[in-house]
């Protein structure tokens, strides 16, 4: 459980957060979806105590604020900007970060080995990070957040700049973290990721939460109509409808139908509806 209440943050003239509030329930993957500059990273930074908000409150469960070291022990963060030592090997990086949490030697070795295997870097464990690809660095960046077995994991754009293979591995990883009972906060500006992965999504723009709910709820209430396209010999007919299934049932009875296409609304449509802008611009 994680609660952010009415967070405000300015950087000079720029209002990064303008009264952002979120309640993130335990044990789910919670997506923060918004375009670049929406305030996702600022939100994460405040949540983990890297930044102090101008006003507002953070509760990491049981009233814990991130200023307290023992509360920070409960969170793991994979920062958006990869935070690793290039001149250390993958294993040395993990070993060092594990030491910061006071893990014993055998514990460190065991955790590092397990995590390296989990992110598919076992065979590169003793290579310096310097020579890693973007995707490999991202995976190690994620592993470094999990060494101390934190119940809350915050992943800030964990798939930025990676190959499709690494992306799938990372998404799979996020799911398994949730399945282990952790709370996963996942920020992204990729609509598809949020849609595929997240149990709940908050749509963020200009430092505010515009809407929050399950993907179903958001699309159902804010996505607008589905589009049913009926292909006949005379050409295509495009029908906007709130009830695509009923529409299809009626239309398919007519003769000469050679094909149909149903376009259900998605989070992109939700964002467009809320802001009048597209997510990817």
């Amino acid at each position, binding site marked *: 459980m994680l609660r952010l209440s009415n967070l405000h943050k300015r950087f000079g003239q720029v209002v990064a957060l303008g009264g952002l509030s979120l309640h993130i329930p335990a044990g789910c993957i919670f997506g923060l979806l918004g375009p670049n500059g929406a305030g996702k990273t600022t939100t994460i930074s405040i949540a983990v105590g890297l930044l102090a908000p101008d006003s507002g409150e953070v509760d990491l469960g049981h009233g814990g604020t991130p200023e307290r070291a023992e509360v*920070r022990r409960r969170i793991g*963060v994979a*920062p958006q*900007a990869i*935070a*690793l030592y290039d001149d250390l090997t993958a294993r040395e990086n993990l070993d060092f970060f594990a030491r910061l949490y006071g893990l014993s030697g055998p514990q460190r070795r065991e955790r590092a080995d397990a995590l390296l295997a989990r992110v598919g870097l076992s065979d590169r464990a003793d290579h310096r990070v310097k020579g890693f690809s973007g995707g490999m660095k991202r995976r190690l960046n994620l592993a470094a957040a999990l060494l101390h077995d934190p119940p809350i994991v915050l992943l800030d754009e964990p798939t930025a700049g990676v190959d499709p293979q690494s992306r799938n591995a990372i998404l799979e990883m996020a799911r398994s973290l949730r399945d282990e009972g952790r709370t996963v906060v996942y920020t992204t500006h990729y609509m598809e990721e949020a849609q595929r992965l997240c149990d709940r999504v908050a749509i963020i723009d200009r430092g505010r939460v515009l809407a929050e709910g399950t993907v179903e709820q958001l699309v159902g209430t804010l996505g607008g109509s589905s589009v049913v396209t009926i292909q006949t010999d005379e050409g295509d007919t495009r029908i906007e409808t709130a009830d695509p299934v009923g529409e299809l049932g009626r239309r398919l009875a007519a003769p000469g139908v050679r094909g149909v296409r149903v376009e259900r609304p998605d989070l992109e449509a939700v964002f467009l509806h809320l802001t009048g802008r597209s997510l990817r611009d």
Partner: protein
Amino acid sequence: MNAVLAIAIKDIRLLLRDRMGFFFSFFFPLLIAVFFGVVFRGGGGGGGAGSGIPVAVVDLDNTAESAAFAAKLIAASELEVTTGLSPTEAEEAVRIGRLRGSIVLLPGFGEARRRPFWGEPMSIELAVDPSRAALASMLEGVVTRHAFEGLSEMFADPAKMRGQVRESMDQMRRDGSLPRAMRPAFEMFFNALDSMLQTVQEDSAGEPGEAADPAQAAARAGGWQPVRVSTRAVSARPSGLPTNSFALTFPQGVIWGMMGCALGFAITLVMERTRGTLLRLRIAPLSRMQILAGKAVGCFMVTASVAATLMVIARVVFQVQPTSVIMLAAAIACSSACFVGIMMLLAAVSRTEAAGNGLGWGVLLLMAMIGGGMVPLEFMPGFIRTLSVVSPIRWSLLALEGGVFRGFSMAQMAAPCGVLLGIGGMSFAVGARLFRPD
């Protein structure tokens, strides 16, 4: 504590893997120490490139006459003169072998020069290293010759000279302490001198070289002594270090090593910020003080190890025997602590690695320059020696030399060490306050 140590060890590992950093904090200093040690080997450890005997000339008389004599010594090809030192500084320089001798023109020098034939002679004190007897007597010879050469010049102006002879004769007559029996001899000598000068004057072509001889002859005959050169032995260090130029160059090498380490560490701290890894340290259950302490401990360990390693090399390979290993260890510890503070301050004010490198080398080179890290302070003009008190390098060098060959006692070591710890503590406090994690 475990986390503090973890940060320290991680940084040491990173520094060892950074070839440039390693070069500047270890090989380059070693190179400097060895190179200059070889260059100055047997040459007494430094000074100008001239081939003269390195000496100090200290003018305590401060008259036109003493200044003229000092100028003569400076111009002498046999000597390589340093001026502006106090008698104690000059003597210390001789003691540690940076100079071969100290020539002190005592008060009353000018007065004695104006009336060379009576009263106290021109007094010159020569402080030399007795372990080099040949050199000492050679120096004595050079100084005496120049003193007499000066006198002989006066013979070139017989009219002036006759005035001086008459003045001396008057004083002699008034002087009650002169034994009665000797008076006629002096009367005779002065009269002879006067008539000789008269001849020279009338000839109007006096040969100064010849004219000097009767004076010296007279000195031998009647005990006339226009110049008194008293030679004093300066107690050289028991280790006999003045003969080992490496004893002088290795402390300087250590200084360079410490500067390289401090800068390397400052850069790792700046990089933690620019590369984002500081973020992980801040998220971890550590306090800000623990993070900075980790940096400080790592920097201290590396700095002290580099210094110790260089001194071990000096001992094993170049036979540099420290007068006190304990004092040397204290000097290394206090210097390292000072450089930790400087590291913190540098890291705090540098936004980027490039800025840190530029600023760091700039500041450190300046401090080295005015602190004797490049050219020994004994060879620097007086105002730099005064200015040098603000440079931690001066104090660090003094402490290191105190342990290596100056034979410092605990009390003598306390001053530079106190200054070093003070500068270090203050820089660290200011740096830690100024350091912005984001």
